[in-house]
Structures are given as C-alpha cells and as structure tokens.
C-alpha cells in the first residue's frame, strides 16, 4: 500500500460534492467536507443555511441527488441509515429526539439497539452514567421530566451507547443556558479525548469553535469558508461577516 492509503485511513468521513434537498427544492449545493479519525470538526452556519440537511443527507435520512459519502474509505453513498450505525456512526439529533415516556435508562438502551452483546450494553451504560452522573441519579425518571440540558446530555450519552467512531451532533446548544452549553461542549470534548471518537458538530454557537480542530462554514447550502488549527479560533470575526454582512453592534458584544 502506498502513502495514499495512509491518508485515506486517517480520513474517517469524506463528503464530496453533496447535493440534496426536499422535493423539487435543492438545499445543498456541492458540499464537500471531511472528518479525520479522532478529530473534532465544527460545521457552522446560520438558521436556514442547511446544516441539519447536511447531517440528514450524510446519514441517508434524506435522498442525495449527487455526491459521494465515504466512511473509512468505503463508499457508503446510499447505504441505509441503520447500516451506518453498524459501521460506527451515531447521530445526536436537533431537538434531542427523546422518547419522553421512556425512562432515562430505557432511552440509553435504545442507543445500543444495534449492539447484540448484552455485556457490552451494560458496560456502555456504566460508562455513560460515569460520564454523566446526573443521568445515573435520574435513571428511572421519564426522559420528558428532564430539563433541557439534561435531555441534551442524555441525547449525547445515547449517541455514545453504540460505541461509535463518529458522532454527529446537531445543535447541541439549542435552548441551553450559557453554563449548560459550556458543560455539554466540555463533555463532548472529554468524550472525544478519552474515547477517541471523531465528532462533527453542527452549530450556530461560535463557542463550538473553541473546541474544534477544523471548521467549515455553510451558507445557503454551500461551504463558503474553512479553517484549520489556530485559524479556527480567529474565525469568529470572519463568521460575523458571513452571518451579518456587518460587524456586530457594540451592544451585543
């Protein structure tokens, strides 16, 4: 094998020229991005930029009209969503997608639906409770009774239950208080460090940039900007332009 295969192995998710939409309406135009093994990538964009659509198209919940998706070098374009789960992809959906009438423990187990090995499920639960102690406390409460932040933690914990290689997180900060946003982001960063999970985090909240190794900016369904390393941290100013077309008013700073 040549050097090329090494880079291929390092690239976990590769999205190339993705086009998608709803019915006759095209939302994504030639979107390309990639996530390397163990890396945290932020996909930034404003309301309506197409962020959620990207995740839906990657995971096969939405039909792609063009483009390729590769996972660890294998072409998974058009593969059914459940087969992606088996290959180590987990989605933490926007709005948390809790089953409100099931308990915390039951919701967690749902995340391990594709896992056959009972011992592995028990181990994954134990790990989740260790990472998110509040969930252990509320284990037997209905998920609908959790606060927004706790539901978001449960959603992330549930995503990790299948022991994924890649975690796709859609707007984890939605409706969270500043401190809870920080907590959830820190937990995601922790999980990534300790479990070596690659994370693609989709956000409007620029705080996500503090955690990311690389970032892409989506605008009207197109990738309009990308950055790597320290440039990510400097992206805030550029993003402001992209979102606002003007500097943020002093009062909002």
């Amino acid at each position, binding site marked *: 094998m040549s050097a090329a295969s090494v880079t291929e192995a390092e690239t976990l998710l590769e999205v190339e020229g993705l086009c998608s939409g*709803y*019915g*006759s*309406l095209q939302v994504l135009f030639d979107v390309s991005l990639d996530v390397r093994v163990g890396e945290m990538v932020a996909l930034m964009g*404003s*309301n*309506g930029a197409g962020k*959620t659509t990207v995740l839906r198209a990657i995971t096969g919940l939405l039909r792609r009209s063009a483009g390729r998706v590769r996972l660890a070098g294998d072409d998974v374009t058009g593969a059914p969503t459940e087969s992606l789960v088996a290959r180590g992809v987990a989605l933490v959906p*926007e*709005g948390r997608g809790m089953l409100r009438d099931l308990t915390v423990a039951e919701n967690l187990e749902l995340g391990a639906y594709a896992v056959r090995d009972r011992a592995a499920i028990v181990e994954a639960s134990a790990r989740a409770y260790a990472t998110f102690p509040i969930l252990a406390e509320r284990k037997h409460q209905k998920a609908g*009774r*959790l*606060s*927004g*932040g*706790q539901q978001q933690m449960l959603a992330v914990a549930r995503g990790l239950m299948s022991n994924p290689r890649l975690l796709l997180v859609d*707007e984890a*900060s*939605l*409706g*969270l*208080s*500043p*401190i*809870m*946003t*920080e*907590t959830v982001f820190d937990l995601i960063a922790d999980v990534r460090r300790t479990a070596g999970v690659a994370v693609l985090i989709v956000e*409007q*909240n*620029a*705080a996500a940039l503090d955690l990311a190794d690389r970032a892409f900016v989506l605008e009207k369904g197109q990738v309009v900007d990308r950055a790597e390393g320290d440039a990510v941290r400097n992206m*805030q100013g550029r*993003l*402001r332009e992209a*979102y*606002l077309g003007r500097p*943020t*008013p002093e*009062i*909002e*700073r």
Partner: protein
Amino acid sequence: MPSRVASAIAVAVAVGGSLLLGNVKLSILVGVGVTAIAALGLDVLVARTGQLSLAHAAFLGVGAFTAINVGSRGAPWPVAILAAVIVTSAAAILTGLPSLRIRGLQIAITTLAFQEFAEEFLFSRNDVTAADRTLSRPSFLHSDVRLYLFALAALALVLLVRYRLSVTKAGRSFLAVRDIEDRARCFGVEPGQSKLLAYAISGAIVGLAGSVLALKAGSISAKDPFLLLESLQLVAIVVVGGAGSAAGIVTAAVLVKGLPQFSSTIPLTHLRAVRIVPIASAALLVVAIVAAPQGIGGLYRAVGRFLDRRLGARGRARPEPRPRPTDAVAAAHGAATLRLVPRPLPLRMPVPALLEAREVRVAYGGVTALDGVSLEVRRGEIVGLIGANGAGKSTFFNAVSGLAPVKGSIRYRGVELVGRAASSRSALGAARTFQDLGLLRAETVAENVLLAQTWLARYPAAAGIVGLGSALRTERELRRRAGLALELFGLGHLASERLGDLPYGTMRIVEIASAVAAGPDLLMLDEATAGLGPDESHALGDRFLAVRDELGLTLVVVEHHVPLIARVCDYAYCLESGVLIAEGKPDDVTAQPQVVESFLGRADAATGRGLG
C-alpha cells in the same frame, strides 16, 4: 391550475356520463355515491381528528332507517332527510363521548361497541327497520337519472361542507386537538367541544348518505349494508383513497364498491366461477397500499406537482426561508391595529402590575418545579426570566397559561387566573410560545397564525360550516390580522409555506408572530431565540422593542442569550431550582455571583452564545 381542470373534467364525466348509462348501472352508481359520502364522513374523523371509527356502517343504517321511518309516515322528503341527518349526528356524538377521556385505538373499540349494539339490537327490531313500510320517492326523483343526479348533488354538498370545514375555525381546531391538544387550549380551542363537533359533523354526513340510500331503496329489510364488514370497507376506502383527500376517497369508493358490481353485470361466467374478481381486488388493494402509502389522493397530488412543473405554470420559486429584514418600528406601526380586540373583562388594575404572581407553587408528582415564586410584571415592561435549564422557567409559563397545577395566586389585570380554564385565558390577553414549538408543522404558516387566533373567531363553529356571512367576515378579518402579524416579523413571503419545511429558527419566529396575532396584552416567549443566529437574534430584539413601543405589549422572555436580555429587558428575574435567586436590572442580575454560578458559568460565557 391542473386541479381545477381535473375537477371540471370529473364533474363533466359524472354528470354527462349519467346520460349514457342504463338504469341498472345508474342504480349501482347511486350505491357508490352513498358509499363515497359515508367514507367522506368517516374521513372527517380519521384525517382531521386522527380517530378511527368502526361504526360508520351502523351510522349509515341509523340514517337510512330514520329516513324511511319518518318519510313513510307522510313527512315530506326534506324532513325525512333532515331527521336522518340529526338522528345520525346524535348517535355519532353519543358514540364519541368516550373520546373526551380516551383516544387512539381505545376509541376505535368503543365505536365497535356501537356497531355491535346496532347490529344485534337496533337493526333486528321491526319498529326500527320499518320493514313493512316503504319510503316513496318524491315525484321529481322518479327516474334513475334524477336519483343519480340527486346523489351527485348530495356529494357536492358534502364536498362544500368539507371545504368550509378546512377554511374555518372548526377544521383548524380539530387538527390542533389531534396533534397539540394542550397547547391548542392556549389558543382558546376547547378540546372536548371540538371532538364532539367532529363526531357530529361526521355523523351528519353519514346520515345524509343513509337518507340517499333510503330514497334509492324505498324499504330495506336486510341489514347487510350496515354490518361490521361494511364499516371495515369504509375504513379501507379512506385508507386507499388517502385520508384527507376527497378526490382520492371518491375514486377509491368507485374502485372498491363500484368495480366488483359492474363486473357482475358483465357476463364473465368463467372468471366468476374461479372467484377471480374478489381475489384480484384483494391483491389490488395490497398493491395499492404498498405502492401509494399516501393513497390515491397522494398520487393525484404527485401528478399535480408533476404537471405544475411541466407546464411551468409560473413555477413558483420557493421564497427565502428566513425572515426578511424590514424596519421593525415601521412594521410594528403598521400592525398596531392588532391590539384592537374586544376583551371579556374590564380592566381592573389597582396596581401597575399587569401580572402578579404570589407564592406560586407547582409540583408534579414528587418533584417541586416552582417553590413559592413571587414576581410581578408591569405594563409596558420587557421582563427577562433567566436561569439554568430545569430551573422552572417554562413551568412558570405553564402556571400562567393554565397548563400546570398551581398553588398560590396569579393575578392578571387584577383578575385571579388560578382555577380558570386554559382555553379562557387567551381571551383575557395572555399569549405565549413554547420551548419546543406548539404549532402544527404539517400545516401552512398562515393556517397556524389563524389557529392561534381561535379565541377571536367567536362565531359558532356551525356558522362557519354553513357559510354564514358573519363567520366568513370574521375569517377574512383573521386572515388580515395574520398577514399583518407575519409582515411584522418579516415573514409575509412565507405565508403559504408548510411550517415544517422552514428552518427551525424561522418556525420559532412564526410562533411568536402567531402569538402576537392573537392580540394579547402580555406576550410570554419561551426561548425566543433558540435556533437563531446572532443576526436574527439581534433583529428579533428590535422587534421586541418595537412591539412594546408601537403595539403597547408587555413581554416576558425566557432567554439564554444574555446580551439580548441586557439590551431589551427593563427588569430581570433569575430562577434556580424553582426559587427566585435574583431580581433587578439585567446588568445587576447577571453580575450577581449566584447567577454567574448557576446560569452563566465562566465570566466570559456571556459572550459564548453566538458571535456577539
């Protein structure tokens, strides 16, 4: 455009075709018409309220026998029909009573009980079936062609009723009760009333079908057309036709009911010998459901969309799915008339507080969500309510809007709210939004804004269905208001978009616009900027100031975006674990150590949200 052409063709075929067919075939067609009308009646329940009835064949029997009983005793035919409609409607309401407590499959089982009762008891009594009597047709219906045209007219009437239902408050309320029952009460929808009305309308339509059947048959001795199997067939017709699609259901009625009978008029002795027709139609049913889960109606819609694209008939370009930037103050000025709504209660405010909560306690099961919260909101203020997730902010809104069990006192304009029904509170002038969107995603933006104004639609629901001028005028006024409210938030261009197709943040702004359209004094917004980027959050802040200054609204906003709170709020309260831990000017509140610890986190977290 294609749908109008298609309707015109359908009417032409239905009317013109009758002249070409013989009497036997016309008589079959009248039977198909009866089935179609009954299925359309069932569909009112299935599509609009999400409830399944297994008793509609029994209702058809109730209608037919009532018409025969009344008509054969010398009453003029319109009276017989009216009696059938009223009695069947009453039977349906009776059957629907349990729906006030239960829903889904359970309610289907209670309808099954009525079906059994009708089959075993009602229809085996001679005084009910009037087996010895005959309803003679009025002279103008003596020919089969005329009876057929009469059935068509009845069908047209039902289609008109269904249309009216979809454009007036009754239809909207049904959908809301189906999908968002609790939230709908905050719009002034009364779920119990809505459910029974749905049964009443459904029953009335089936009663009409029954009376057409009575006119056709004259007298009915066998109870075959009214058995459970027929009820199930009506359900099948609704499913194959596509719930909610009148054209699909009529087509399905022709296919399911008409084809087998027509085939029996054709001498296919060999084929019938091997019972090919029932087998073929069973197979066709399965194929149809698998190939078109949305039913025949779904196919029609797909064809319509295809033709639209092909004909390029002004191929409607989809508008930008985000709010359009407009001058907030000018827009609010234009929308100022939204406040001109009649209030059932006079203004009684000895103190300047518009909303005054005293020692409010809310406990769910063993969990205390609010523990003795006292706060007040003065008229014309924008008050921020901040606090950690789970602190009790949304619970406070639930307490004010009547969705949580409250101990303590909440006075609004000097009137005690505790103990008042949620559905009556919007009329007092308190409107709200929900953290996780309390609207109908499958409906258009405009339809949702109309729904939010239900308390303003004070005409009787029946007046809307009959199409009384006053009801239609009210609806026009509500539409005007909806337009104003949408313009106010830069959403005018999205009025006819399906809400669920919009970006999440935009849906949230639609919900705010809906709340404003209801003409409240007090607007309670739960996480108004969730899902919005910094630019849209900033623009929304401008709207808050504008609706306060130009429309004179008072606002309470639950918000995590601290810069926004600091910019627009006059006063702020901070909750933690159901208890108030701080209040005062926003800057003072967010500077308090306890607030920083429980809500803000790191000192720089205030700037964490968004880019501002």
